[in-house]
Every structure is written in C-alpha cells, then in structure tokens.
C-alpha cells in the first residue's frame, strides 16, 4: 500500500519498433488497457461471450432481428429499474420495494385510465408523480429519520403490494388506451421511400454513430488542448471502431425488422441522461461521495441527507415508469405484476459492477448487468432450458460475477 505507485505501473506504450512489431505493440496496448480497466471491460466481454454462446447454441436464433427486438421489449422495465437501483446502491443503500411499487403504479394507471377514463398523458404524469411521492416518502424515513433503507423498503415492499391488491380488488384490470399500448409495444413510425430497412431507425443509428465519433474526437482534442495525457492513437482508433461497429450491428438488426422499439428510445434517453448526471453533474459526484465515505463526504460539506432523499425519490419515479411500461405492454394491471423485479434489478447492478458497500458503479454497468441477465433468460428459453435450471444458472452467474470482482480487487490490492 505504501509503496511508490510510479514504480508499479507498467511503462507507457513501448514505442513502435518498426512495422513488424506494430501488431504485437497494439496487442500489448490492449492488454494493458484491459488490465487497468478490468472492472469496466470484464462484464462487457462476459456479455459478448454469453451472446456468442447462445447465438451458436440456438443456431443463430438469438440474433434474428425479431428476437433482438423482443429482447429489448422484454427487458426494458428491468433495465429502467436497474438504472435507478444503481444510483441507490452507489449511495450505499438498497431498495427492496421497487417490484411492489412497479405493480402499484401499474394498478394506479389502470384505475385512472380504465376505471376513470382519464386521458392517458394526464394519467401517465399522475402515475409518475405518485411513484415519486412514494419514493420520496421512503427517502424521508431513510435520509432524515435515519431508518436503514433495508427496513424501510422491506416495509414498502409489503405495503405497496398490499395496496395494489386493495386497489385492484384482487382482479386484473385492462385494457389500456391504444396509444399507450403503442408506446410500450410499438415501433418508431416508418418514413420515406421503400427500402429493405426501416428508414427512421437507420437514420437514428447513423446520427448516433456520427454523434459518438464527434464526441470522442472532441474529447480527445480538448484533452490535447489542456495538455493532458491521452489514450495512445492506436488504442483510440480501436475503441472508436469497436463502438461504431456495435452501434451499427444493433441498428441494422433492428432496422431489418420493424425498426427501433419506442421503449428503446426512452431507455436510450435515460441511459445517456443518468450516465451524464452521474459522471458530470455535481449531484452525481455527491452520490458517489456519500456511498464511498459518508463521514468524509459530510466533512466536505456534502448535504448527504438531501442527496439520499433525492436518490430515493428518483428511484420511485423510475419504478413508476417501469410500472407503466409493464402494464401497457401486457395491456393489464395485475396484482402479481412486478414480482421479484427488485431482485432482478439488484442482481443487474451487482453483475454490472456495483459494490455492496457503495461508492462504486456506473449507469452503463447496470445496463450491461441487466443485459447479461436478459440475454441469459432469452437464450436459455431459445435452447429449451427450463425455468428451474434458469434460476440455478442465473444464481451462479451472479455469484461468479461478484466473486470475480472481489478477487480482482484483492489482486490489484485496493
């Protein structure tokens, strides 16, 4: 721990020893980069391997355009929850109530729209407000009264499940307005001339690629301007190529079916928005700080109570969004909706690199963790593994992912 750090880190990229060594040099660079960012890339690689495994095992069915589209729709609500859960876990807490809250807001949506014929945009806003209020109530007990989040949200889990059944009187309530169903289940509208692909999806995909390149290049230029160290040019190019091709493949797959699902767009906005918030906004930094070392954060002037409160308020609102998407997708609010969703979201966060003690994790990590679980579910269904073994395997994956993380951390010695 107390040794001089400079001595331990590998020397910066060995300068190219002519053309023949270039390939080896790039390989070396990649390995170095990997070793330093094991946390970030480890799960991405694992996700790639799982995708490859099931793609082969299911004779390519996994990557059929229709299935990819399905995968997004099936997992959207878990992914929405995982984003909020990641924030909660980074701040050093846990939220067990989100599954029940998902069901509760779904039930409220049904009561408002099906029983009372409220226009759907109004009802949606009301439901989000109800979710935020539920989250805020829990956040109040946790942040200002100091009751452990495990207890408060365990109570919330029972309470909201019970309220769901009370409001639905044990029945399933539906159907939802057509427009709302379209948001949860539908695809982007088609525009322009007839091609073999979905034009708007292609357009959005290309726009995204252009944005990614612009962003990365601008970042690099600014780093140069500030005379800061930058990624070696070769590695930068490799990263750019990998990013662009990933976006391109998904775009083409989606565009060759019915186009991008609307929920994917919502999800995309959430990922970018919350990713930006956690990385660049002051409040994001404060969330990491209170999770990483609460006493130090307090002594640095971080308003820890307010931050905790907001994190739970946000979780409630996202749970409401997930509840709406879920109810609209199945066109009914059911008392049994959202069962075990909290556990899936928590598992996704931990697979995606969160730490039980808080202070660590990224929004992208939560998405990767959620996708690992989603692809496992979908892939195992495709190859005909029963739900009994699915659970066994998912449990093992969670344990292995976190175990790997713990082992890796000890190895690095931090």
């Amino acid at each position, binding site marked *: 721990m*107390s040794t001089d750090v400079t001595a331990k880190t590998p020397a910066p990229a060995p300068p190219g020893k002519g053309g023949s060594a270039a390939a080896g040099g790039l390989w070396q660079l990649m390995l170095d980069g990997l070793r330093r960012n094991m946390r970030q890339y480890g799960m991405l690689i694992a996700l790639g391997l799982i995708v490859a495994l099931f793609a082969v095992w299911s004779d390519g069915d996994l990557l059929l355009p229709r299935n990819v589209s399905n995968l997004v729709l099936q997992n959207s609500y878990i992914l929405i929850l995982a984003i909020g859960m990641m924030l909660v876990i980074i701040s050093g807490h846990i939220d067990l109530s989100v599954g029940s809250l998902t069901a509760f807001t779904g039930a409220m949506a049904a009561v408002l729209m099906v029983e009372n014929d409220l226009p759907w945009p109004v009802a949606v806003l009301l439901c989000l407000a109800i979710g935020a209020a539920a989250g805020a109530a829990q956040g109040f007990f946790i942040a200002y009264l100091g009751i452990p989040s495990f207890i408060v949200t365990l109570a919330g889990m029972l309470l909201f499940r019970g309220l769901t059944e009370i409001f639905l009187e044990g029945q399933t309530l539906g159907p939802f307005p057509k427009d709302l169903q379209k948001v949860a289940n539908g695809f982007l509208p088609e525009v322009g001339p007839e091609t073999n692909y979905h034009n708007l999806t292609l357009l959005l995909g290309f726009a995204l690629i252009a944005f990614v390149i612009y962003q990365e290049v601008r970042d690099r230029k600014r780093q140069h301007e*500030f005379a800061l160290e930058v990624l070696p040019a070769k590695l930068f190019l490799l990263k750019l190529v990998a990013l662009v091709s990933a976006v391109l493949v998904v775009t083409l797959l989606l565009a060759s079916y019915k186009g991008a699902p609307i929920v994917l767009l919502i999800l995309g906005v959430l990922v970018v928005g919350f990713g930006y918030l956690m990385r660049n906004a002051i409040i994001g930094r404060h969330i990491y700080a209170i999770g990483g070392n609460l006493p130090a954060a307090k*002594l640095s*002037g971080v308003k820890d109570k307010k931050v905790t409160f907001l994190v739970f308020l946000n979780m409630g609102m996202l749970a409401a969004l997930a509840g709406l998407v879920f109810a609209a997708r199945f066109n009914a609010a059911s008392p049994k909706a959202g069962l075990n969703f909290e556990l899936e979201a928590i598992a996704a966060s931990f697979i995606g690199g969160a730490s039980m003690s808080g202070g660590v994790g990224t929004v992208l990590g939560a998405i990767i963790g959620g996708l690992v679980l989603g692809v496992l579910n979908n892939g195992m269904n495709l190859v005909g593994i029963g739900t009994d073994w699915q659970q066994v395997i998912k449990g093992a994956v969670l344990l292995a992912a976190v175990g790997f993380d713990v082992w890796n951390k000890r190895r690095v010695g931090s």
Partner: protein
Amino acid sequence: MAGPVLEMRSIVKTFPGVKALSDVTLTVRRGEVHAICGENGAGKSTLMKVLSGVHPHGSYEGDILFEGETCRFRDIRASEQHGIVIIHQELALVPYLSIAENIFLGNEHAKRGLIDWNETLRHATELLRRVGLDEHPETRVADIGVGKQQLVEIAKALSKKVKLLILDEPTAALNDEDSGKLLDLILQLKEQGITSIIISHKLNEIRRVADSVTIIRDGQSIETLDVKAPETTEDRIISGMVGRDLENRFPDRTPHHPEEGTAPALEIRNWTVHHPIDQQRKVVDDVSIEVRRGEIVGIAGLMGAGRTELAMSVFGRTYGRYAGGTVLRDGAEVRTKTVPEAVGHGIAYVTEDRKHYGLNLIDTINRNISLTALGKVAKRGVVDEHGERQVAEGYRRSMNIKAPTVFEPVGKLSGGNQQKVVLSKWIFAGPEVLILDEPTRGIDVGAKYEIYTVIDQLAAQGKAVVFISSELPELLGMCDRIYTMAAGRLTGEFSRAEASQEALMRQMTKDKQAEKDEEVTR
C-alpha cells in the same frame, strides 16, 4: 520468590517502514504499580501489545521473562493463561450482553456446552464485590456508564486469575470522580498482591498510585525512576519525556508579527462542548483562542486534551454537543453550525484521520480534490471534467503528489501522498483559515518537510493557520504562537520565544486536579 515479576529485555519491533520500538527494557517488581509514560506515539501501546501477545512471538526481537520463565506468546489467550491481562483504552465489552455474560465471555462457566447460570451469577457477584461495583450482574453493559464499564473490565481480568494487570490510559475517558475510584481500586488490588502496569501521561495520577515509572521516548526506554523518591519531581519526569534534540528540519520561517488593531482572522470565544454520549462530560471547556492573518498558531496537547474535538465542533458542529461559545471571522460573529456554513465563511478543517474523515479512498485523486468545491469547476451543476482534471494535475505537480495520473485511486497512495491530496482538496476550497489536525501524522520525513513548506507558503499568502500536533519539535519549529490544552481546557499560551518542550509539556500534563491543588497552595 524474590526478583522481578516481569523483565522485557531489548525489545525491538518494526512495522513496514517504521521502527516502533528500537530498544526497550522494562523491569517490573512483584506487587508494585509500575507506570509507563511518554508522548503520543512514543511506543507505549506497542510495547504492551508485544507483552500481551497481540504482536506474537517472532514478530519482534528481544526476550520476555515472566516469573523467571522465558515467554513466547502466540496470541492473547497464551498470555492470559499466564495471568497477564491487558485492558485497552477502547473497552472490549459487548454492549448488549449483561455484566455477567461479559465477564465470562470466551471463558464461560459451562457444562457440556451449556452455561451454568447459577455459578455464573454467583461468581460474577463475588467479582463485582471485589472491584466495588454495586450493580446487578444481569444489567446490560450498555446501561452503565464508562467508569463502571471500566470496573467490569477489571472484574473480567480478575476472573482470569490475573497476576499482572495492564491498563492502557484507564482514566482517559473518565470524569474526576470515576478516575479517583479507579485509582483507589488499583491500590486495593496491589494490596491483594496483583502487580499492575499503568500507561498514563497524567503526572499527578502517576504520583498518586505508582511506585516506579519508566519513561519511553521515540521507541526507547529512557529511564526508570522511583516515584516515591524525593528527587523524582514532575519536572524530572517531563524532562525525561521530551529530552530530544530538535533534529527535524523546517523551512526557514520569518516569524510573523501581526499588526495591532486589526481583528483576528479567526477568534473562538468561550467554546464549550459536551461528549456526544456521556453528556455530563465536558470535552472542551470554555476555550478561547485567536489566529491572525499570516500567523501559524499551534495547539499542543496529549491524548484526550480536546484539540480535535475543539476543531471539529467549530467546523460545522461535526463533533459532540455544542454547549456555548461563539466564532468570529475578521471580528464579526459567524454561524458555523453546518459544514457548508463553515466552508462558506472561509474555514477549512484538515482532519487527523485522513482515511476515515478525509478521503474517499476508492475514488480517484482528481475527484477527491474537487469534492469540497465542485462549484469552481462546474457550470450550472455540470462538472467540467477537463477543467477538473487540469486543476488536479496542477496540484499533483505543485504538491508533488507521487502518482502516475490523477485518475489513480487515492487508496493506493502512500500516507504522505494521501495527506497531500487532503491538503490540496482544502486549499482548492479557497479558505482564509485552515485548521490542520496532525497534518504530518504517520508520514515519512521527506513528505513532512514538503508539507511544512506548504504550510509556510499558506501563511506567507496571508492565510491564518491553526496547527494541531502532538509532536512538540514540529510545533516549535513552525509556529508563531502555541496554545496548550489538557483535559478539555486551555492551560497555556506561549510566544515563539517563550516556548520550549519542557514548558509546553508542563502545561500539557496539567489537569483540573493539579490546578485546584495549585490554587489551594496559593
């Protein structure tokens, strides 16, 4: 059975990078109360850990002879089997178990794994009578005060057939009355033939109970004095504790002479704070200090003097219960009830415990530095990462933080470099008054010099610096003025010219009792 009960010969104990004990010899006679005293960090506690097997045989050099036999303790259990029991400063009791359960924890009266409650209670009652604790043995430990808990610890020791009882600063957390009782008990036990070693730096306490005193300084045993001998005065003990050369080097400082007439940058008036749990106890008692621009003012004190408590309670009431006093900045009274308020009034507190209160160890250097003043590198709530990185790179260079990039997790840095990150963080916050609490604790000589230089520069820029330290040479080398504290009270104020290690130590070892005695003799 003549001869000493315990002999420790030429004990040497090294930790990675630090020699905690370089040559300690200790001889304790049978049936005496033997005091060990020395400055913070002199090696007292380490020595006792060697003796009690916390640091097992093989991890140190030298010999331990107990009752004439060479001992090689593998762990605490082994030393306890020989009748050596240590009571640590932080009591090791389980708060929600009863007194009786605590006394016999790990050593239960049991038959075939089942506890014999009748025997347990009978024996506990007997032990409580011996230590003079009038509580039912089934009372929860959490429900009795610290003083009584201390007695439970001693009862626990007695249950282990103790021959040599070691008490590490037993009265540090006690009020006067409880302290008195405890000292009486030590004398009673002595009559029953139990030898005690008591670590303490309260000189009047040592004079009251001890027969002899061994002084330890910088990991070496300096001398053993007979307390009852007339030539062993308090001054004699003090000169043993501090008699070290000023060999540390400090940047050349032109002493600061504040202009008269201007208000001090920071003034604290009649500050009183109660202990957060034991609310009867005053941890800081009516303290008034002032610091002017460009001035470095030291606060000297031993463990439990209340220096950190004073600083933290002023800085956003982050310690204890406020019980009175005001804070003035440039002559105007200000509110510092919360950390943001204190920071807003230009006050920074650099903690003595950087790992727990100073840094987010799992986060990177740049993010640690920017945390207190994120607004400075942000626009409308959004942090400019490049600007932030540039700021951090600036501090990495100017403070000479040894790390390949500012994206290194702080937990991987050495202590000295971590300290530089904490300092950078608070300098970045742009304070006018800096309270530095043990800024050089646990770091090597080279890094110390670098930190002294930074402190000197801060003062030269016109900042007011409060420098809390346990190392007297450091205070003498750096400060324009030095306050001394003991047991929560201000006991002295010295100009740079008046201050000497002996003079400071005399005021630092003064407690309420001694003051009262003084008043009476006057």
